[in-house]
Every structure is written in C-alpha cells, then in structure tokens.
C-alpha cells in the first residue's frame, strides 16, 4: 500500500504526540489542588510550614508522574519513532 508513506506516518506521529500531551490536564488539576490545600494548611497552622511544604512537594511530584509519561510518549513519537 502506498498510503503508508513516510510523510503520512510522520504527520500522524505528530498528531499523536499532540493528543498524548492532553494528559497534562490531570497533573495540572492535581498539583493545583494540592497547592491549595497546602496553602489552607499553612493558613490554619503557620508553625507547621516546613512540614506542610515537604509533604506538598512530595505529593505534587508523585502526581506529576502521569504527565511526564505522556511527555515521554510524545518525545518518543517525534524523535525515536521507528516507523518514520
């Protein structure tokens, strides 16, 4: 089949990379929620600022993982694509 030529596959890979980055929505919402709760906790108990910050950053880093997976999928599709 001549449909699956190189340009076609590269174009579809670029579209796929763009669609994969929609996964960035989830970590954004999650990190914002964690930051809001952290700010509320510091407001309630300003003495525990250091502990709250550490816990918040750790939780945000774990929540960020799914977004980074989508970033890696997009980078693999664009740069290391074996079909294009």
């Amino acid at each position, binding site marked *: 089949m*001549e449909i*699956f*030529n190189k340009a076609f596959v590269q174009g579809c890979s670029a579209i796929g990379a763009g669609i994969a980055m929609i996964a960035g929505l989830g970590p954004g919402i999650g990190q914002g929620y964690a930051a809001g709760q952290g700010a509320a906790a510091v407001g309630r108990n300003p003495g525990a600022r250091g502990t709250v910050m550490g816990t918040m950053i750790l939780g945000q880093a774990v929540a960020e993982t799914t977004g980074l997976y989508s970033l*890696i999928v997009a980078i693999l599709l664009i740069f290391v694509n074996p079909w294009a």
Partner: protein
Amino acid sequence: MGSDVLLALSARGFGGLPGVVSQSNDAIGEKIGINSYGSVTLFGYRFYFTSTHIALLIIVIAVTVLALLANRVIRKADPYGKPGMAMTIIETVVGFIDNTTYSNMGEKHGGAFRNYIGTLLLFIFFSNISGVFGLRPPTADYGVTFGLAMITFFIIHYNGFKYQKIKHITGLFDPIPLTPINIIGEISTPISMSLRLFGNVLCGTVIMGLLYNLLPKFLLLFWPGALHVYFDLFSGAIQAYVFTMLTMVFVSKTFEE
C-alpha cells in the same frame, strides 16, 4: 479521494513501504542533543562516547574539588572565632542533609544513610543545574537516571531482607488475589522514579533547545536567563530534593516491623 492523489504524492519522492526503517543510534541522539565523540566496538556491540560522559566527568571532578575545598575550610576553622562565609554555607548544607535524613528515616537509622543521601543530593543537584554552565545535563540521559534508581532499588531490597527477613517475600502474597499487583508495584518503583527525573530535566533541555534554535540571535539577549532560572535552577533543585526524598521514604518503609 481518488488513489491518484496518493500515487502522485508518493511519486514525488515520499515513497516507502511500512515497516521498521533502521535508524542508527547516532541519528536519534543528535536529535535530542547528545553528540557522539567516537565509539568502541566490544563483544559485538557498539559503545559510544557521548556528551553525557564528558558532562559526567566534569561534574564528578567539580564535586570532588568542592568537597576537598570544604574539607580544607573545616580543618582550618577556628572553633572559638566567628565562622566565615564558606564555613556558614558548609554548615547550612550539612545541617539540611542531616535534618532531612534524621526526620525521615528516624533517629536510629538516619546516621547510616546520611552519607549516601548527601552524595546523591549533591550529585543530582549539580547535574541538573549544569545546563546553566553550558553542559548538557547528564540527568537528561535515561541511562544515568535509571542507574541511580537501580541503586535505590537494591538498597530497598537489601534493607528489606535485613530488617524483615522472610516477611519481605511473604508480604508480596499478603492478600493472595493481589499478588500480581504487589509484584508490579515493586518493579515499577525504580522505573517511575527514574522517568520522573529524566522527564523533568529533558523537558527543560528540549524547551531551551527549541528556544535557542528557533529564535533569531538578536531576540535572545537577556531574557532567556529567566527561563534558565526556572528550568535549570528551580526545577533542578526541586527534582533533586524529590528524588532523595522518595529514596528516603521507600527505604524507611522497610524498617517497620
């Protein structure tokens, strides 16, 4: 759509059959900024000497020199006088490492791990911020971060067998139906840790590379410094902290009875 259009497209030089087109490692590396400076063939495989190795060597030498200088400052310090600027910085860094280690791993086990945690923190921090000094950050290479995560993986399981004995294995089968999920959870720990560090640093490197290659020179005078502060300094420091924090959390889980 008639097949004529597609035939015309393919006749113009875009022709090619589907299938795996072999792409050399050189081509992939150069696209994301890893240059090869020569290769050696050993045991039938080709090993490349890349910019990651050069950056790693420079960073290891820099950290060693800084450690020797710190040692010299500590030896010459006057215990009864005022501490100088270098002494204050060293005390802050060592105090921070001691504090986080003891508060996360407990008073009993913290002392045994603070050397490793401090080394890891300093190495990852200097690797992440090396983009400021014009190197390609070594942590934007998956081989480096996966190696660091595998060290954590072996420390977790060594301490698991040391403190929990046979329960470390039987704990995997605790609720019998969940056995596959427990095993996948153990295997995914180093993979998710290494991909998190790699993804964050590579994201900054790719964005800075796009900026420097797409914009004309006269538009790149002062303001990319702000992006360097965010992507290299801030993000790098946060990710170094997160990696060591996760190492401490996972290792200290094995101390519980």
